């Protein structure tokens, strides 16, 4: 590589890390949502994401090696960040109860194993999950707003949200209207999120972008800012129903957005990658990425979550391997 090309690379990387709102103050952020035109101008004014640079940066972070006591700490942290999820048409009350007991005591043989952050279920299962989790610190998260497609009228979506919230959900995972977003009707998406947040009341709101349908990293960055401006507590990559689901570079773009948003407004927003994270190694890579991109402030279950189901078993197997010194097997952990 010549000196010139090295410098060019650096310049591209520099753009990737530019502060998108260095000239924007908090007062002007309030103005950008005044109309569709101002919102579009703001979102399209965000610096573009260098796709190759983002992919390369993510791949570079994936090669970090985390061993021994650091790995042990990271595994426990990852377990405590899991939103143990079941979102199937065939969910039964029995399955949801089994999932809840697993969330409270992921490894029944080891009391030192932390509980997961939450269980994530469909709205009609919230009551059952709430009852099963009574007295435990595990939250109940419910998907709402015509999950996973979001293709329903606003009235129906708000009703869906209100029902899940009144059933006792601690967290609501809403989907955005990707059709409206891709068509450029940003204010409509913004108003949707604001309305859902209102319907949630005090309940925490996570906004799902379904990044697999947003096509570009630029769109992911725009959607992140849009959701944060509308008041989301968490931004979440995917429903898990569309491939590709969460990827490391997409999540990194979102983590950069929450970092920049806090720098601009002082408000911290959480991030939740969901779908496609199956191995402990993947999970630890995400933690490394969060630490390197946004810093340790996000390394708690309050600000970073994994939406997953099979990941938990792999984390438990790794944890058991570290404790016993021998490789574990899938036969020794519950399927759900």
């Amino acid at each position, binding site marked *: 590589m010549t000196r010139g090309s090295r410098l060019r690379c650096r310049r591209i990387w520099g753009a990737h890390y530019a502060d998108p709102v260095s000239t924007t103050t908090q007062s002007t952020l309030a103005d950008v949502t005044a109309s569709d035109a101002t919102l579009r101008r703001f979102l399209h004014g965000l610096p573009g994401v260098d796709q190759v640079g983002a992919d390369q940066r993510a791949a570079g972070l994936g090669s970090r090696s985390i061993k021994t006591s650091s790995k042990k700490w990271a595994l426990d942290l990852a377990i405590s960040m899991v939103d143990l999820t079941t979102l199937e048409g065939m969910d039964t009350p029995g399955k949801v109860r089994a999932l809840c007991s697993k969330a409270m005591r992921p490894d029944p043989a080891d009391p030192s194993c932390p509980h997961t952050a939450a269980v994530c279920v469909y709205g009609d299962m919230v009551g059952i999950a709430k009852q099963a989790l009574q007295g435990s610190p595990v939250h109940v998260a419910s998907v709402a707003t015509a999950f996973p497609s979001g293709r329903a009228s606003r009235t129906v979506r708000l009703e869906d949200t209100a029902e899940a919230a009144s059933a006792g959900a601690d967290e609501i995972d809403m989907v955005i209207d990707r059709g409206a977003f891709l068509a450029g009707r940003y204010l409509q998406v913004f108003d949707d999120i604001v309305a859902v947040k209102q319907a949630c009341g005090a309940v925490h709101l996570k906004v799902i972008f379904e990044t697999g349908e947003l096509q570009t990293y630029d769109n992911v960055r725009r959607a992140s800012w849009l959701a944060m401006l509308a008041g989301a507590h968490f931004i979440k990559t995917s429903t898990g129903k569309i491939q590709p689901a969460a990827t490391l570079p997409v999540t990194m773009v979102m983590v950069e957005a929450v970092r920049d948003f806090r720098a601009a407004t002082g408000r911290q927003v959480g991030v939740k990658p969901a779908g496609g994270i199956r191995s402990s190694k993947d999970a630890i890579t995400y933690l490394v990425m969060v630490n390197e991109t946004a810093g340790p402030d996000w390394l708690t279950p309050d600000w970073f979550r994994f939406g997953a189901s099979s990941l938990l078993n792999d984390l438990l197997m790794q944890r058991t391997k570290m404790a016993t*010194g*021998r*490789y*574990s*097997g*899938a*036969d*020794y952990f519950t399927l759900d």
Partner: protein
Amino acid sequence: MSRTDVRKTYKLYIGGAFPRSESGRTYLVETADGTTANASKASRKDARDAVGAARKAFGGWSGRTAYNRGQVVYRVAEVLESRRAQFEAELVGAGSAAAQAGVEVDAAVDRLVWYAGWTDKIAQVHGSANPVAGPYFNHSAPEPAGVVAVVAPASPLLGLVSVVAPLIAVGNTCVVIASQPAPLVAIAFAEVLATSDVPGGVVNILTGDAAEIAPWLASHMDVNGLDLTGVDDADLARDLEVAAADNLKRIRRAGVEDLAASPALDRMTTFLETKTVWHPMGL
């Protein structure tokens, strides 16, 4: 015009692919013509990956009909036969006399054919219809145990074939630690497996130090059987058996045996489990 030598890099065989050891290590193998080769020296993580590959392949392989498994094992014999010249040369390289090499390839091919024939007969011989005091048919049928870890005996080709063929014939998948002094023949045999319809992961071959890798396989909770045929150190064999007891692995104990003699059924039956079903009669 002179041509550049195309030399083969001997690697591992895991999940149908030929990766280098994750550790990047190799060890020197002396060959009969005075040259030396570098064989991969597998680490515990390669063993872990191989067990993962074998577990993944188990459902599909054990779910095939016995007849189909027989065809695949027979196909391995066919491909080995067609590569006879290569294997004779490999065996000579590993120290066999030329005449002995031909005999050993013959025996290896014949053994594969013999086990290929047994795939759809073992259930008839080893299973049973049990008379019971009630209106039920009661059948006992043998089923494969799962993933079996094997320490292969020193005989580089016939030894390897003799331990692998019975396992895959009955539907098990395996992770084999090849003979440490003669690993090149084992990797050449992996090329035969890779080109004869044996699904990736059904047989995984590691080369390196058995004393280093075998304890990880013996204690691995996702391994269902342990074949210690190639372990000649009595202390190591005992330690491996103790480690394997934790999840009640089926064990074939270490011990010298005459591999040239006709085999019995015990290499197949050791790694079979018996399932008994009751079925109402007259419905």
